[in-house]
Protein backbone atom coordinates (compact mmCIF):
# COMPACT_ATOMS: atom_id res chain seq x y z
CA UNK A 1 0.00 0.00 0.00
CA UNK A 2 1.27 3.48 -0.85
CA UNK A 3 2.18 5.62 2.18
CA UNK A 4 -0.54 8.20 1.51
CA UNK A 5 -3.23 5.55 1.29
CA UNK A 6 -1.90 3.98 4.48
CA UNK A 7 -1.89 7.33 6.29
CA UNK A 8 -5.43 8.03 5.13
CA UNK A 9 -6.56 4.61 6.24
CA UNK A 10 -4.92 5.14 9.61
CA UNK A 11 -6.59 8.53 10.02
CA UNK A 12 -9.94 6.98 9.21
CA UNK A 13 -9.29 4.13 11.62
CA UNK A 14 -8.33 6.49 14.44
CA UNK A 15 -11.39 8.65 13.72
CA UNK A 16 -13.57 5.55 13.78
CA UNK A 17 -11.96 4.41 17.03
CA UNK A 18 -12.42 7.74 18.78
CA UNK A 19 -15.99 7.97 17.51
CA UNK A 20 -16.64 4.38 18.49
CA UNK A 21 -15.28 4.81 21.98
CA UNK A 22 -17.24 7.99 22.51
CA UNK A 23 -20.44 6.35 21.29
CA UNK A 24 -20.29 3.56 23.86
CA UNK A 25 -22.73 4.35 26.58
CA UNK A 26 -20.83 2.64 29.35
CA UNK A 27 -17.23 3.74 29.07
CA UNK A 28 -15.52 4.64 32.33
CA UNK A 29 -16.35 8.31 31.86
CA UNK A 30 -17.90 10.63 29.30
CA UNK A 31 -15.22 12.37 27.26
CA UNK A 32 -17.13 15.33 25.83
CA UNK A 33 -17.76 17.23 29.11
CA UNK A 34 -14.02 17.28 29.83
CA UNK A 35 -12.31 17.25 26.43
CA UNK A 36 -13.19 19.29 23.36
CA UNK A 37 -13.86 16.37 21.03
CA UNK A 38 -14.20 18.67 17.99
CA UNK A 39 -10.75 20.20 18.43
CA UNK A 40 -7.42 18.64 17.62
CA UNK A 41 -4.10 20.05 18.79
CA UNK A 42 -0.49 18.99 18.53
CA UNK A 43 2.41 19.47 20.90
CA UNK A 44 6.00 18.18 20.87
CA UNK A 45 7.98 17.39 23.98
CA UNK A 46 10.03 14.87 25.90
CA UNK A 47 8.35 12.05 27.84
CA UNK A 48 8.81 12.68 31.56
CA UNK A 49 6.71 9.83 32.96
CA UNK A 50 4.22 7.21 31.79
CA UNK A 51 1.59 5.94 34.26
CA UNK A 52 0.74 2.48 32.89
CA UNK A 53 -2.33 2.34 35.12
CA UNK A 54 -6.08 1.83 35.17
CA UNK A 55 -8.54 3.17 34.38
CA UNK A 56 -6.40 5.21 31.96
CA UNK A 57 -2.74 5.53 31.11
CA UNK A 58 -1.31 9.01 31.63
CA UNK A 59 1.54 10.36 29.56
CA UNK A 60 3.42 13.29 31.08
CA UNK A 61 5.41 15.42 28.69
CA UNK A 62 7.92 18.19 29.27
CA UNK A 63 7.23 20.92 26.72
CA UNK A 64 9.12 24.18 26.13
CA UNK A 65 6.67 27.07 26.11
CA UNK A 66 6.98 30.19 23.91
CA UNK A 67 9.27 31.88 26.43
CA UNK A 68 11.53 28.85 26.60
CA UNK A 69 10.36 27.59 29.99
CA UNK A 70 9.59 23.94 30.64
CA UNK A 71 5.94 23.07 31.25
CA UNK A 72 4.44 19.72 32.15
CA UNK A 73 1.59 18.50 30.00
CA UNK A 74 -0.63 15.50 30.83
CA UNK A 75 -2.47 13.25 28.39
CA UNK A 76 -5.13 10.69 29.22
CA UNK A 77 -4.93 7.54 27.07
CA UNK A 78 -6.95 4.34 26.93
CA UNK A 79 -6.50 1.66 29.63
CA UNK A 80 -3.40 -0.54 29.74
CA UNK A 81 -5.83 -3.48 29.39
CA UNK A 82 -7.15 -2.15 26.08
CA UNK A 83 -3.76 -1.08 24.74
CA UNK A 84 -1.81 -4.19 25.75
CA UNK A 85 -4.17 -6.25 23.56
CA UNK A 86 -3.45 -3.93 20.63
CA UNK A 87 0.30 -3.75 20.37
CA UNK A 88 1.33 -1.38 23.13
CA UNK A 89 3.56 -2.42 26.03
CA UNK A 90 4.42 -0.54 29.19
CA UNK A 91 7.76 0.32 27.56
CA UNK A 92 6.33 1.60 24.25
CA UNK A 93 6.90 5.09 25.60
CA UNK A 94 9.85 5.67 27.93
CA UNK A 95 11.12 8.76 29.74
CA UNK A 96 13.47 10.74 27.53
CA UNK A 97 11.72 9.89 24.25
CA UNK A 98 10.84 12.87 22.08
CA UNK A 99 7.27 12.64 20.83
CA UNK A 100 4.68 14.69 18.98
CA UNK A 101 1.25 14.17 20.53
CA UNK A 102 -2.05 14.85 18.78
CA UNK A 103 -4.82 15.35 21.34
CA UNK A 104 -8.31 16.60 22.16
CA UNK A 105 -7.64 19.61 24.43
CA UNK A 106 -9.02 19.96 27.96
CA UNK A 107 -12.02 22.30 27.97
CA UNK A 108 -10.67 24.19 30.99
CA UNK A 109 -7.65 25.28 28.95
CA UNK A 110 -5.11 23.51 31.18
CA UNK A 111 -2.02 21.87 29.69
CA UNK A 112 -3.29 18.50 28.59
CA UNK A 113 -5.94 16.48 26.84
CA UNK A 114 -7.07 13.15 25.53
CA UNK A 115 -4.26 11.34 23.76
CA UNK A 116 -5.03 10.40 20.15
CA UNK A 117 -1.71 9.71 18.44
CA UNK A 118 1.95 9.97 19.35
CA UNK A 119 4.63 10.16 16.69
CA UNK A 120 8.08 9.05 17.81
CA UNK A 121 11.36 10.36 16.35
CA UNK A 122 11.91 7.06 14.51
CA UNK A 123 8.57 7.54 12.72
CA UNK A 124 6.73 4.93 14.80
CA UNK A 125 3.15 5.94 15.58
CA UNK A 126 1.22 4.98 18.69
CA UNK A 127 -2.53 5.56 18.53
CA UNK A 128 -5.39 5.20 20.99
CA UNK A 129 -6.49 2.31 18.78
CA UNK A 130 -3.16 0.49 18.91
CA UNK A 131 0.54 0.62 18.05
CA UNK A 132 1.54 0.66 14.40
Amino acid at each position, binding site marked *: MRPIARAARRTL*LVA*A*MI*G*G*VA*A*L*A*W*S*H*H*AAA*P*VFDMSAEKTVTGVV*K*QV*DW*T*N*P*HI*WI*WLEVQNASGQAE*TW*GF*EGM*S*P*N*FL*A*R*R*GWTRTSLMPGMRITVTFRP*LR*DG*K*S*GGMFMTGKLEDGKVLTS*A*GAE
Partner: protein
Amino acid sequence: MIHDRAMRRTIFIVLLLITAAAISTAAQHSIPKPPAAADWAALARLPDLTGVWEAPTVGRGGRGRAVAPPPEPQLTPAYAVKKRELDARNSDDTEAANCLPTGMPAIMGHPYPYEFLLTPGKVTIVSEAYMQVRHVYTDGRPLPADPDPTFNGTSVGRWDGGTLVVETIGFSPLTTITRNTPHSDKMRIVERFHLTGPDTMSIETTVIDPEALARPWTTTRTLARHRDWTIREYICEENNRNFLDAQGKAGVKLTAPGK
Protein backbone atom coordinates in the same frame (compact mmCIF):
# COMPACT_ATOMS: atom_id res chain seq x y z
CA MET B 1 -40.03 -49.40 84.64
CA ILE B 2 -42.66 -46.68 84.38
CA HIS B 3 -39.98 -44.17 85.09
CA ASP B 4 -37.85 -45.70 82.23
CA ARG B 5 -40.77 -45.63 79.82
CA ALA B 6 -41.48 -41.96 80.59
CA MET B 7 -37.81 -41.18 80.07
CA ARG B 8 -37.77 -43.05 76.74
CA ARG B 9 -40.87 -41.20 75.61
CA THR B 10 -39.28 -37.85 76.48
CA ILE B 11 -36.12 -38.75 74.55
CA PHE B 12 -38.24 -39.88 71.59
CA ILE B 13 -40.19 -36.59 71.54
CA VAL B 14 -37.01 -34.53 71.81
CA LEU B 15 -35.43 -36.47 68.91
CA LEU B 16 -38.61 -36.00 66.87
CA LEU B 17 -38.50 -32.23 67.44
CA ILE B 18 -34.79 -32.04 66.50
CA THR B 19 -35.46 -34.03 63.29
CA ALA B 20 -38.41 -31.83 62.38
CA ALA B 21 -36.30 -28.72 62.96
CA ALA B 22 -33.50 -30.14 60.81
CA ILE B 23 -35.89 -30.99 57.96
CA SER B 24 -37.41 -27.52 58.11
CA THR B 25 -33.94 -25.88 58.02
CA ALA B 26 -32.91 -28.09 55.08
CA ALA B 27 -36.01 -27.01 53.16
CA GLN B 28 -35.02 -23.37 53.61
CA HIS B 29 -31.31 -23.78 52.76
CA SER B 30 -30.82 -26.84 50.60
CA ILE B 31 -27.15 -27.70 50.62
CA PRO B 32 -25.97 -28.52 47.09
CA LYS B 33 -24.43 -31.93 46.59
CA PRO B 34 -20.70 -31.95 45.87
CA PRO B 35 -20.14 -32.39 42.11
CA ALA B 36 -19.54 -35.97 40.98
CA ALA B 37 -17.52 -37.08 37.93
CA ALA B 38 -20.77 -37.35 35.96
CA ASP B 39 -21.57 -33.68 36.70
CA TRP B 40 -18.23 -32.58 35.27
CA ALA B 41 -18.71 -34.88 32.25
CA ALA B 42 -22.19 -33.43 31.65
CA LEU B 43 -20.63 -29.97 31.10
CA ALA B 44 -19.06 -31.27 27.87
CA ARG B 45 -22.53 -31.77 26.41
CA LEU B 46 -23.45 -28.10 26.95
CA PRO B 47 -22.71 -25.37 24.37
CA ASP B 48 -19.15 -24.21 25.01
CA LEU B 49 -19.48 -20.67 26.30
CA THR B 50 -16.12 -20.81 28.08
CA GLY B 51 -13.33 -18.37 27.38
CA VAL B 52 -12.75 -14.64 27.08
CA TRP B 53 -15.23 -12.60 25.03
CA GLU B 54 -15.40 -8.96 23.97
CA ALA B 55 -17.81 -6.90 21.91
CA PRO B 56 -16.04 -6.14 18.61
CA THR B 57 -17.18 -2.52 18.58
CA VAL B 58 -13.69 -1.27 19.31
CA GLY B 59 -10.51 -2.78 18.05
CA ARG B 60 -7.76 -2.61 15.57
CA GLY B 61 -7.43 -3.53 11.92
CA GLY B 62 -10.99 -2.90 10.82
CA ARG B 63 -12.40 -5.69 12.96
CA GLY B 64 -14.39 -3.10 14.80
CA ARG B 65 -17.45 -1.65 13.19
CA ALA B 66 -19.89 0.90 14.40
CA VAL B 67 -23.05 -0.48 15.90
CA ALA B 68 -26.40 1.28 15.81
CA PRO B 69 -27.31 2.75 19.17
CA PRO B 70 -29.75 0.50 21.03
CA PRO B 71 -33.42 1.52 21.03
CA GLU B 72 -34.40 3.75 23.93
CA PRO B 73 -36.56 2.15 26.65
CA GLN B 74 -40.22 3.25 26.61
CA LEU B 75 -41.04 4.59 30.07
CA THR B 76 -44.29 4.73 31.97
CA PRO B 77 -45.58 8.29 32.52
CA ALA B 78 -44.43 8.30 36.17
CA TYR B 79 -40.88 7.22 35.26
CA ALA B 80 -40.74 9.57 32.28
CA VAL B 81 -41.22 12.37 34.83
CA LYS B 82 -38.41 10.96 36.99
CA LYS B 83 -36.12 10.78 33.97
CA ARG B 84 -36.91 14.38 32.98
CA GLU B 85 -36.10 15.51 36.54
CA LEU B 86 -32.74 13.72 36.40
CA ASP B 87 -32.02 15.04 32.89
CA ALA B 88 -32.81 18.58 34.11
CA ARG B 89 -30.02 18.31 36.69
CA ASN B 90 -27.79 18.21 33.63
CA SER B 91 -25.08 16.10 35.25
CA ASP B 92 -22.04 15.71 33.01
CA ASP B 93 -21.54 12.04 33.70
CA THR B 94 -22.38 9.06 35.92
CA GLU B 95 -20.77 7.86 39.16
CA ALA B 96 -18.75 5.42 37.03
CA ALA B 97 -16.38 8.36 36.52
CA ASN B 98 -15.76 8.09 40.29
CA CYS B 99 -15.16 4.33 39.88
CA LEU B 100 -18.55 3.14 41.15
CA PRO B 101 -19.30 -0.11 39.26
CA THR B 102 -22.27 0.28 36.93
CA GLY B 103 -24.24 -2.82 37.99
CA MET B 104 -26.78 -4.61 35.81
CA PRO B 105 -27.61 -4.28 33.00
CA ALA B 106 -24.83 -1.79 32.18
CA ILE B 107 -22.03 -4.03 33.46
CA MET B 108 -22.66 -6.29 30.42
CA GLY B 109 -22.20 -3.35 28.00
CA HIS B 110 -18.63 -2.28 28.62
CA PRO B 111 -15.87 -2.12 26.00
CA TYR B 112 -13.92 -4.68 28.05
CA PRO B 113 -13.80 -8.47 27.96
CA TYR B 114 -15.82 -11.01 29.93
CA GLU B 115 -14.72 -14.49 30.92
CA PHE B 116 -17.34 -17.24 31.09
CA LEU B 117 -16.65 -20.20 33.38
CA LEU B 118 -18.85 -23.29 33.48
CA THR B 119 -18.74 -25.52 36.54
CA PRO B 120 -21.34 -28.04 37.75
CA GLY B 121 -24.48 -26.12 38.67
CA LYS B 122 -23.04 -22.69 37.96
CA VAL B 123 -22.01 -20.23 35.27
CA THR B 124 -19.63 -17.50 36.43
CA ILE B 125 -19.24 -14.33 34.37
CA VAL B 126 -16.15 -12.27 35.16
CA SER B 127 -16.28 -8.69 33.89
CA GLU B 128 -12.86 -7.14 33.46
CA ALA B 129 -14.36 -3.65 33.76
CA TYR B 130 -14.51 -2.80 37.47
CA MET B 131 -13.50 -6.43 38.25
CA GLN B 132 -17.07 -7.60 38.71
CA VAL B 133 -18.28 -11.19 39.08
CA ARG B 134 -21.76 -12.49 38.28
CA HIS B 135 -22.79 -15.78 39.89
CA VAL B 136 -25.44 -17.59 37.84
CA TYR B 137 -26.75 -20.74 39.55
CA THR B 138 -27.86 -23.40 37.08
CA ASP B 139 -28.50 -26.17 39.63
CA GLY B 140 -32.26 -25.81 39.42
CA ARG B 141 -32.72 -23.63 42.49
CA PRO B 142 -35.48 -21.04 42.24
CA LEU B 143 -34.82 -17.33 42.56
CA PRO B 144 -35.16 -16.23 46.19
CA ALA B 145 -38.45 -14.47 46.92
CA ASP B 146 -36.95 -11.24 48.25
CA PRO B 147 -33.17 -11.02 47.87
CA ASP B 148 -31.20 -8.09 49.23
CA PRO B 149 -30.74 -5.49 46.50
CA THR B 150 -27.28 -5.61 44.90
CA PHE B 151 -25.52 -3.98 41.94
CA ASN B 152 -25.52 -7.12 39.78
CA GLY B 153 -28.68 -8.66 41.25
CA THR B 154 -29.32 -12.31 42.10
CA SER B 155 -29.28 -14.71 39.14
CA VAL B 156 -30.36 -18.22 38.23
CA GLY B 157 -29.96 -19.84 34.83
CA ARG B 158 -31.30 -22.77 32.86
CA TRP B 159 -30.51 -24.32 29.50
CA ASP B 160 -33.21 -23.97 26.86
CA GLY B 161 -31.78 -26.18 24.11
CA GLY B 162 -28.56 -24.45 23.11
CA THR B 163 -29.43 -21.21 24.88
CA LEU B 164 -28.48 -20.24 28.42
CA VAL B 165 -31.41 -18.30 29.85
CA VAL B 166 -30.51 -16.19 32.88
CA GLU B 167 -33.05 -14.47 35.06
CA THR B 168 -31.94 -11.77 37.50
CA ILE B 169 -33.81 -9.83 40.18
CA GLY B 170 -32.99 -7.70 43.22
CA PHE B 171 -31.15 -4.57 42.09
CA SER B 172 -29.65 -1.73 44.10
CA PRO B 173 -31.39 1.63 43.68
CA LEU B 174 -27.91 3.02 42.87
CA THR B 175 -28.11 1.28 39.47
CA THR B 176 -30.17 2.45 36.50
CA ILE B 177 -31.86 0.86 33.47
CA THR B 178 -29.93 3.28 31.31
CA ARG B 179 -28.61 6.76 31.98
CA ASN B 180 -30.92 8.86 34.19
CA THR B 181 -33.52 6.08 34.02
CA PRO B 182 -34.19 4.59 37.46
CA HIS B 183 -35.79 1.18 37.93
CA SER B 184 -38.34 0.02 40.48
CA ASP B 185 -37.83 -2.88 42.89
CA LYS B 186 -39.86 -4.98 40.41
CA MET B 187 -37.15 -4.92 37.74
CA ARG B 188 -36.36 -8.32 36.27
CA ILE B 189 -33.74 -8.97 33.59
CA VAL B 190 -33.81 -11.98 31.27
CA GLU B 191 -30.70 -12.70 29.21
CA ARG B 192 -30.43 -15.29 26.46
CA PHE B 193 -26.86 -16.34 25.61
CA HIS B 194 -26.25 -18.50 22.58
CA LEU B 195 -23.45 -19.29 20.18
CA THR B 196 -24.01 -17.95 16.65
CA GLY B 197 -20.68 -19.28 15.31
CA PRO B 198 -17.56 -21.07 16.53
CA ASP B 199 -16.37 -17.91 18.30
CA THR B 200 -19.35 -15.58 18.32
CA MET B 201 -22.05 -15.31 20.94
CA SER B 202 -25.27 -13.36 20.93
CA ILE B 203 -26.68 -11.92 24.16
CA GLU B 204 -30.29 -10.80 24.03
CA THR B 205 -31.16 -8.77 27.12
CA THR B 206 -34.73 -7.97 28.09
CA VAL B 207 -35.45 -5.61 30.96
CA ILE B 208 -38.92 -6.02 32.44
CA ASP B 209 -40.18 -3.47 34.93
CA PRO B 210 -43.95 -2.95 35.11
CA GLU B 211 -43.55 0.25 37.15
CA ALA B 212 -40.78 1.91 35.12
CA LEU B 213 -41.19 0.52 31.60
CA ALA B 214 -44.27 0.76 29.38
CA ARG B 215 -43.10 -2.42 27.68
CA PRO B 216 -40.11 -4.77 28.07
CA TRP B 217 -36.89 -3.30 26.67
CA THR B 218 -34.81 -5.69 24.56
CA THR B 219 -31.29 -5.10 23.25
CA THR B 220 -28.85 -7.49 21.60
CA ARG B 221 -25.07 -7.54 21.78
CA THR B 222 -22.66 -9.82 19.95
CA LEU B 223 -19.38 -10.88 21.55
CA ALA B 224 -16.32 -12.36 19.86
CA ARG B 225 -14.22 -15.03 21.60
CA HIS B 226 -10.47 -14.56 22.02
CA ARG B 227 -9.00 -17.90 23.03
CA ASP B 228 -5.55 -16.37 23.47
CA TRP B 229 -6.69 -13.59 25.85
CA THR B 230 -6.69 -13.60 29.61
CA ILE B 231 -8.57 -11.26 31.91
CA ARG B 232 -6.39 -8.48 33.29
CA GLU B 233 -6.59 -6.66 36.58
CA TYR B 234 -8.69 -3.46 36.56
CA ILE B 235 -8.42 -1.43 39.73
CA CYS B 236 -10.34 1.70 38.87
CA GLU B 237 -9.01 3.54 41.93
CA GLU B 238 -5.40 2.84 40.92
CA ASN B 239 -4.97 6.18 39.14
CA ASN B 240 -8.42 7.61 38.51
CA ARG B 241 -7.99 11.26 37.60
CA ASN B 242 -11.56 11.63 36.34
CA PHE B 243 -14.27 12.83 38.69
CA LEU B 244 -17.87 13.88 38.89
CA ASP B 245 -18.49 16.33 41.74
CA ALA B 246 -21.60 16.71 43.91
CA GLN B 247 -22.93 19.41 41.56
CA GLY B 248 -22.70 17.03 38.61
CA LYS B 249 -19.65 18.70 37.06
CA ALA B 250 -17.08 16.39 35.47
CA GLY B 251 -13.38 17.13 35.49
CA VAL B 252 -9.85 15.81 35.47
CA LYS B 253 -7.30 16.04 38.29
CA LEU B 254 -4.28 17.19 36.36
CA THR B 255 -1.62 17.03 39.05
CA ALA B 256 1.69 16.67 37.32
CA PRO B 257 4.04 14.02 38.76
CA GLY B 258 6.30 15.29 41.52
CA LYS B 259 4.05 18.26 42.29
